[in-house]
Structures are given as structure tokens and as C-alpha cells.
């Protein structure tokens, strides 16, 4: 198989797909958001527990391909314990990275960096961004409440 494919399906991505982190729902969540990708049927549900502007906990449920589900798993891992502002900032960095744009690399992206290969597969960018868009929308809604 091509090296391009290997750049897409990195080991760490498959690991998150197979063993998703923070999968499930939060009983004591402060906010829930559902989002789907109408063109392909992928869907995600996020529940957050935000206290004093800090994402104390987050879980996801959903259905989708390896890219969308691993991205969701990595996203939850990345924002847990971060402030709402930091999480939203991370979402912007992620969005730039996934579209192949220059991105702010001062922040340590950890596992998320493995998704960089998606930028070479334009048809799959939306798979990777679903969870992040849901997170951004959910946290912004939470802030307004």
C-alpha cells in the first residue's frame, strides 16, 4: 500500500480508533451537543463538565470512520483539564493543521499531530474536523449560558 495511505492511517490513529479514550456519556455533564456530517452520516455526541471555565471532563459517543472517531478520541484527551479558551484555541490550530495551512506549533499537540496526514486527503478533512467543530460549538454555547 502507498506511503500516502500510511501517512493517513498512522498507528496512533488506529490505536485511538480501536481503543477510544473518553468514550461514553457523562452522567453529571453540564452541556451536551450533537453534530452530524449530513453528507456521509457520521455523527457525534459530546458531553462536557465545565467548572470555573475549565473543562473538567468530556466524553464522546458516535458513529463514523476511523478518522472521525480517532479524532474525537484525541480531541477529548487534548482538552481535558484545559480552560475553555485554550480548548477553542486548540481547535483553531487543529483546523489550520488539517487544512494544510501554517499553524502555530508552540503548543504541543501530542497524538493530534498524527492527523496531519489527513490534509493530503481533501475528501476526509470533514471526517477529522467533526468532533472539533462540535467541541467549539458546545463550549461557546456553554459560555453563553
Amino acid at each position, binding site marked *: *500500500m*502507498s506511503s*500516502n*495511505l500510511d501517512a*493517513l*492511517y498512522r*498507528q496512533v490513529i*488506529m490505536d485511538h480508533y*480501536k481503543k477510544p479514550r473518553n468514550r461514553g456519556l457523562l452522567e453529571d455533564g453540564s452541556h451536551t451537543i450533537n453534530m452530524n456530517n449530513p*453528507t*456521509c*452520516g*457520521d*455523527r457525534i455526541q459530546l458531553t462536557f463538565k465545565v467548572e470555573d471555565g475549565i473543562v473538567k471532563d468530556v466524553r464522546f459517543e458516535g*458513529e*463514523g*470512520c*476511523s*478518522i*472521525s472517531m480517532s479524532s474525537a478520541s484525541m480531541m477529548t484527551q487534548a482538552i481535558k483539564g484545559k480552560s475553555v479558551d485554550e480548548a477553542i484555541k486548540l481547535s483553531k490550530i487543529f483546523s489550520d493543521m488539517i487544512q494544510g495551512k501554517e499553524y502555530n506549533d508552540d503548543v504541543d499537540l501530542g497524538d493530534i499531530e498524527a492527523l496531519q496526514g489527513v490534509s493530503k*486527503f481533501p*475528501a*476526509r478533512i470533514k*471526517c477529522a474536523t467533526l468532533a472539533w467543530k462540535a467541541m467549539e460549538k458546545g463550549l461557546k454555547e456553554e459560555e453563553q449560558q
Partner: protein
Amino acid sequence: MNVHDIRRQFPILDQEVNGKPLVYLDSSATSQKPIQVIETVEKYYKEINSNVHRGVHTLGTRATDAYEGAREKVRKFINAKSTQEVIFTRGTTTSINTVAASYAAENLTAGDEIVITYMEHHSNIIPWQQVAKRTGAVLKYIPLQEDGTIALEDVQATVTANTRVVSVMQVSNVLGVINPVKEIAKIAHENGAIMVVDGAQSAPHMSIDVQDLDCDFLAFSGHKMCAPTGIGVLYGKKHLLENMEPIEFGGEMIDFVHLQESTWKELPWKFEAGTPIIAGAIGLGAAIDFLNEIGLDNIAQHEHKLAAYALDKMSSVPGMTIYGPLDAAKRAGLVTFNLDDVHPHDVATVLDAEGIAVRAGHHCAQPLMKWLKASATARASFYLYNTEDDIDKLVEGLVKTKEYFSDVF
């Protein structure tokens, strides 16, 4: 029918994608276009481009003759009684929406029923949902058999004296099944309902005779049958179309315009407001000539053979789930499937790296996906230019996909 000669007439097929020869297995989404159609559209723009039905000048007459000539080709293609029954639209979606918004929304009242099936494409569901909301009519679904086919007993049981509209796809874009629309039309008529046939997946692949089917309306798209995008057809029985109001108003469709009211042109033009899709219609005419030359029956037979071959070969891949009947005789040329736990998007991405184009997703049929208990599926669809070699490459690609994902897991 010589597939290799046919392939040479489709310039797009002669290319590499991701370093591999293109294997195009997504004709149910849109077909490729033969050189005859491409050149006809080019010739129209280079030599006769003009608006139709208004110019006194020579080009205007030539454009009008070519546009109306295409309508006659469509009439013959579906054996309509008159060109007055052939309306050019943007595609199947617009055609069905026209029937829903013009015929159904005006004629249905609370308590009336609209009957469709669980396998319909969204374009044959949502227009009826909207009619139901507007009129208080009830939208009912004919259930499916275990193998995805429709049993006439279920049609009998669902269609009642209150049913005013029955609308069914002739060929399923997911299950590949060919529905008995002629028999369903008979049941609809016995109950006083009209019969609408969604021919998006059938018109490209088999000969259709609207008089034999006795359907009241037939909708189909040009782009799935070798014609350009943006052109489609609504066939309707003249006595019904005559009593329907247009849903779009403006130029081209009027008889007289007064200050407070206007009158409409005769059929079919009252349904063609604005400058029509002239190049598209002429391209559709060229596509019909092309298909007729090969013969719709030959095309259907070729696709049946490919479907049988694909069902056989694909079934041998471990972990393969195939949706719809496994009996090739009940099918048109497409196979929808899932491969173990590998998500169809991932299947499609790996196949794409091998130059193989398949569709992945819900195929605009979410109620059917629910019935299949699948959130998404992958689909390989065939047309006159596909070969057994294409299917062999697909099967090789699927085996590789499976290996690839079992390695990374």
C-alpha cells in the same frame, strides 16, 4: 456489444488516478460521458448557441430545432404519446418536486394518503413529507422483504381507497433491486391513486415504456445516462399535466401577461419558465442516440452479467456483507456492501489509493440505512463501460483493504 470499443469513446476512462489506471465504479452517482455527447455540447456552443422560442434569427431557429428535437428523442426513448408530455427539468429531484408541489399539494387534503417505500432516495421522500405537512395527508411506507425486495401483497395492504399518490423507485440505488412498478401502478389505479415512478436508476440501464408501465409520472436525470449534469425529465400524462399549475413563473412559459394576471403557454412549455437548459437537453438527445445505438437491452444484459460476476467474486472475500438480494436476476448493476469492521469511508479511501472509485456513505437513503441497520455502506456500481476486469481489481482492492486494516489493528 464490444465493451472495449465503448470504453474508447469515454475519454475520461483513459487516465491514471493515484498512479493506477482509473477503475470507475460510481456510475449510479453519475455516469461518465462519451465523446459524442461532449462534442455535441461543444458544437452547440461553437455553432448555434442562441436562446430558444424567441429569436427570429437563424441561430435562434437552429437552437430551437435542436432543443425541440431533443424532446422528440426523449419522447421516443420512453414511448410517450406526445412531446407535450415531456418536460425538461434540472433532474429527477426537480421532476418529483414538481409533481409534489403542483399536483399533490393542490389535490390532496387531510386524511388522504401518499404511499412510498422504505428504500426510496431522499428525493422521493422529502417532497412528500412536505406535501403531507401542507395538506394534512399521511405519508405511508410499504415495508420490505428480508432480501430487500417488495412483495405485491404488502403493496395491496398499504395502498387503500384513501391513497391518492403512490411513488416508487424503479431500481434501488442501494439494494440494486428492480421493483415491479407496472404491477404497483395497477394496484395504485385500482385504488384511485396516481403512480409516480422515480426512474433515476432505471432509465440509464433498461428500456422504459411509459404506456406499458401505465405510470402517471416518470422522473429521471440525464447525468446518470451519459448526458451532462443539470438536465432531467418529467414525463406526465397529458390530462394530468393540463390540469396542473406551473410552480415557476416568468419568461418563456406565458401566453399573455396582463397587469394583474397572466395566462400560460400550452404544454410542455408552461412548466419551463426562464431560459431552459438548452445545451443540456441537446446533450441528452445525443446521449439517447448513443445509448440507442448500443441498445438498452444489450446494456441491461451486460450489467446483469457484471452484477452476477461481482456478487460471486465479492462473496468470496472474507468478512463481506452484501445488501439486497443475492440472486442476480433480481438486480441491476450495482452492489452495496460492508467489509467487516472497516468503515466504508476507510474502504473507499484505500480503494481510491488503488485508482478505484466507489461511493461510501448513506447514499441519500437514511430510512433504508436504518432498515439495513447500517450507518453507512460502500457501493460499487456498473455501467456499459465496465468490465469483469474492473470487478477483479475491485476484489483485489478489497482483499488489500482487509489486509491493510488487519495489519494496523
